[in-house]
C-alpha cells in the first residue's frame, strides 16, 4: 500500500473548513421519502445502520470519491504530496516569516522577473516568473501561507506491547479488594499500558446475550 505521511513539501493552510476526517462519524442512512424509490431491485436497498464500527479512514492517495481515481479534486495537500522536498523544506524553514509569507514571495518573484525582460532570449522567463508572482499574490490575498510538512512519526507497535498477559493468578480469583500487590506490579510492568482495573482481560469480553 502506498505510504502515508510523506515528507517535505508545500502545504497550503486554508482558513476555512477542516478536512472531513475530523468531522463526527457520518449519520446512518437517513433517506426519508427517497428511500422507497420506484421498486428497487436487489441491490438498491438502503442501509439503515453502519455494519461495522470501524473508523472511516482514507485509503491512501488512490482513494477518491469518484472511483475513477486520480481525478476528483481533493482537499489541499491531502493525499499525494511531491516527493524529495525534505532538504528544501529544512532550508526554507530557516528564514522564517520571510519565506513563509506569500506576499514576500510574490514581490520577490516580481523583482526577479524584471532583469530577464531586457533580453529577448529570456523574455519567457519574465513571463513565467510574473505569472508565478501573480499566483502567489492571489494565494496571499486569500490568506494562505507556507507550512512545512513534517514526516509524521509512524507509530511502530512495540513487539511485546500487544501481547497481553494472561491473568497471573488462576481461578478462583479473589475480588478486586483482595488483589495481591506483587501481581499487580508484575502486570503493570509487563503489559505496559493495558487498561487498568481489577482484571485486565486479554480479549475484550462482551456479554453475549442473544
Amino acid at each position, binding site marked *: 500500500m502506498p505510504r502515508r505521511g510523506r515528507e517535505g513539501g508545500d502545504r497550503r493552510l486554508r482558513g476555512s473548513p477542516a478536512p472531513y476526517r475530523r468531522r463526527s462519524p457520518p449519520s446512518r442512512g437517513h433517506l426519508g421519502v427517497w428511500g422507497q424509490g420506484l421498486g428497487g431491485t436487489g441491490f438498491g436497498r438502503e442501509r439503515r445502520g453502519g455494519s461495522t464500527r470501524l473508523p472511516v479512514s482514507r485509503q491512501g492517495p488512490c482513494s477518491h470519491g469518484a472511483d475513477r481515481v486520480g481525478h476528483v479534486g481533493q482537499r489541499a495537500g491531502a493525499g499525494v504530496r511531491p516527493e524529495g522536498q525534505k532538504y528544501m523544506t529544512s532550508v526554507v524553514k530557516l528564514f522564517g516569516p520571510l519565506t513563509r509569507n506569500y506576499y514576500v514571495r510574490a514581490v520577490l518573484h516580481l523583482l526577479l522577473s524584471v532583469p530577464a525582460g531586457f533580453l529577448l*532570449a529570456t523574455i519567457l522567463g519574465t513571463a513565467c516568473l510574473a505569472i508565478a508572482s501573480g499566483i502567489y499574490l492571489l494565494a496571499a490575498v486569500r490568506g494562505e501561507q507556507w507550512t512545512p510538512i513534517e514526516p509524521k512519526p509512524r507509530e511502530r507497535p512495540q513487539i511485546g506491547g500487544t501481547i497481553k498477559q494472561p491473568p497471573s493468578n488462576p481461578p478462583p480469583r479473589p475480588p478486586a479488594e483482595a488483589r495481591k500487590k506483587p501481581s499487580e506490579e508484575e502486570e503493570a510492568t509487563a503489559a505496559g499500558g493495558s487498561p487498568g482495573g481489577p482484571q485486565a482481560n486479554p480479549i475484550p469480553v462482551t456479554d453475549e446475550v442473544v
Partner: protein
Amino acid sequence: MGNWVVNHWFSVLFLAVWLGLNVFLFVDAFLKYETADRYYYTRKILGSTLACARASALCLNFNSMLILLPVCRSLLSFLRGTCSFCSRTLRKQLDHNLTFHKLVAYMICLHTAIHIIAHLFNFDRYSRSRQATDGSLVSILSSLSHDETKGGSWLNPIQFRNMTVEYVTFTSIAGLTGVIMTIALILMVTSATEFIRRSYFEVFWYTHHLFIFYILGLGIHGIGGIVRGQTEESINEGHPHKCAEYFEMWNNHDCRCRRPEFEGQPPESWKWILAPVILYICERILRFYRSQQKVVITKVVMHPSKVLELQMNKRGFSMEVGQYIFVNCPSISPLEWHPFTLTSAPEEDFFSIHIRAAGDWTENLIRAFEQQYSPIPRIEVDGPFGTASEDVFQYEVAVLVGAGIGVTPFASILKSIWYKFQGADHNLKTKKIYFYWICRETGAFSWFNDLLTSLEKEMEELGKVGFLNYRLFLTGWDSNIVGHAALNFDKATDILTGLKQKTSFGRPMWDNEFSTIATSHPKSVVGVFLCGPQTLAKSLRKCCHRYSSLDPRKVQFYFNKENF
C-alpha cells in the same frame, strides 16, 4: 523478458513508428532547408538555424495533429466497438490514450524549445545584418526593399535599422502568436503535473482549456510569410551559385545577374491540424448534446461512510460492464465533469453510480442530495465510455482485483453475472472467476456486501459453487478485530461482513495465488483485471509475467489495468 515482449509488442511498435516518423520528418526538413537552392541567400544570413527552426516546425505540426486525437473519447469508443474482431492487443492499446497524449505533449515541448532557440538566433542574425554597413552580401540582401509595388521581394523581415528584435517579436504575427502559444503551452504543462491533477483537478481542467489559444495561434502563426525563399523565375534568371559572387554588381544594368526576388512560404500548419480540430469539435458537440438529454433520477440511496448511490434513467442509454460515465451537476459547478464507474449491470433497467465523499465537488454533491426538503439537483450525464472491464467475459478465467474503492467496476461485472445466471445464459465464455477485494476497512463498502451475499446464495442454489471464487482482504486490521475473528472462528459466516467466505487479514500473497491459478488452469488464457493503486499494479504485472509460460498454448496471464 520474453513475457514482457509478448505483452507489450504492440506498444513498442507503435511508439517506434511514432518516434521514427518524428526523426524522419525532422531530418528530411533539415536537409531540405540546408541544401535547397531556394534558400541559398536566406542561409547566407541565417546559417543552419534556419533549417533547425523549420525542421522542428514540421515536427510541431505533426505532433500538434496527433495530440488532439487521443482525447476524443467518443472516437476511441467507436474504434473499440468496431474493432471487436481485432485482437485483444490492439484494443488494449486504446486504454493507453492518455499516456500517448502525454508523450506527444513532451515531444511538442522539446520541439518548441528547439524552434524558439533557433528563431532567436534567426532574429538576432537578421538584426545584425540589417545593421551591417560594410556592403557585404548580407547587408545588400537585407536592404532589399519592402516596397509593395516591386512585389515586396524582401528577405529580411526587419525593415528599419533602429527596429529592435523585441519590437519585431511583438508586432509580427508570427512573433506574437509564438509568444502566446508558448505561454499557453507552459501553463498547460505545468498545471498538468500529477500533484496538481490529483489535488486541484479544477485548476488542471480549466487551465488545460488554453489549448484553444494554442491551436488558434498555430493556425495563424505562419501567415506573415517571414520565411522567405527565392522565387522560381528569379532562380532561372540568375542561379545563386553563379550570381552570389557578383553581388556588388547587381545594380548594374549590364550584369547578367539581377537582384534576387523572394517570396514567403504560405502557412501550412492549418493543413495538419484541420482534421483533428474538426474531430475534436465534433467530439465536444457530441458530449454537449449527450449532456443535454434529460436524466431522470429514480432512486437516491445514502449508504454509510458517506457513500451516495444514484440510480438514474436516460433515454437511449445503453452500457456494457465496467464502463464509466461523466457526471455534471450544474448547481454545484457548471463546467466540471467527473468520471464515475457504473455500478449497475447492463441487464438492469436503470444505471447507477456510487459516489464517495473525498473532495470538494463530491462533498458538495452529497450535501446537496442530503437536503431532504429542497428539490433534487439536476444531473447531466455523458457516456458511457469503455475501458478494459468490457473484456472480462472474453477470458476463460478471469482474476479480478479491486482495491478499496476500485471495487466498483467489478460490482457491475458481478451483477451482470448474477443476471446472466438468472437468465440461464450458459453461453458465457468465462468459466471461472477469482475475485480479490482488498480494502482497509469495509464500512464504506457495505453496499458491496449485499451484492456478494446475493451472489453467494445464488451460486449455492444453482449448484455452481465453484464458479465464483472470492476472497476479501482487510488490510487495516488491529488486534481487536483479530481477537473478534479468533473468538468467532467456528461460526459459519464472517463476523465482519456476514458472508460465508471468511475475511483474510493483511495483503494477499500474490505468488501463491498465481501459482494456484496457474496449476489449476494449465491451458487457459487468464485475464487479470486490476482497479487500484500503482504499487499493486506493479506487483500484479510482475506476477503475470512470471507465471505466464512462454509457450502460447499453456497458461497465459494478460494484465489489464483500469485507466485512472
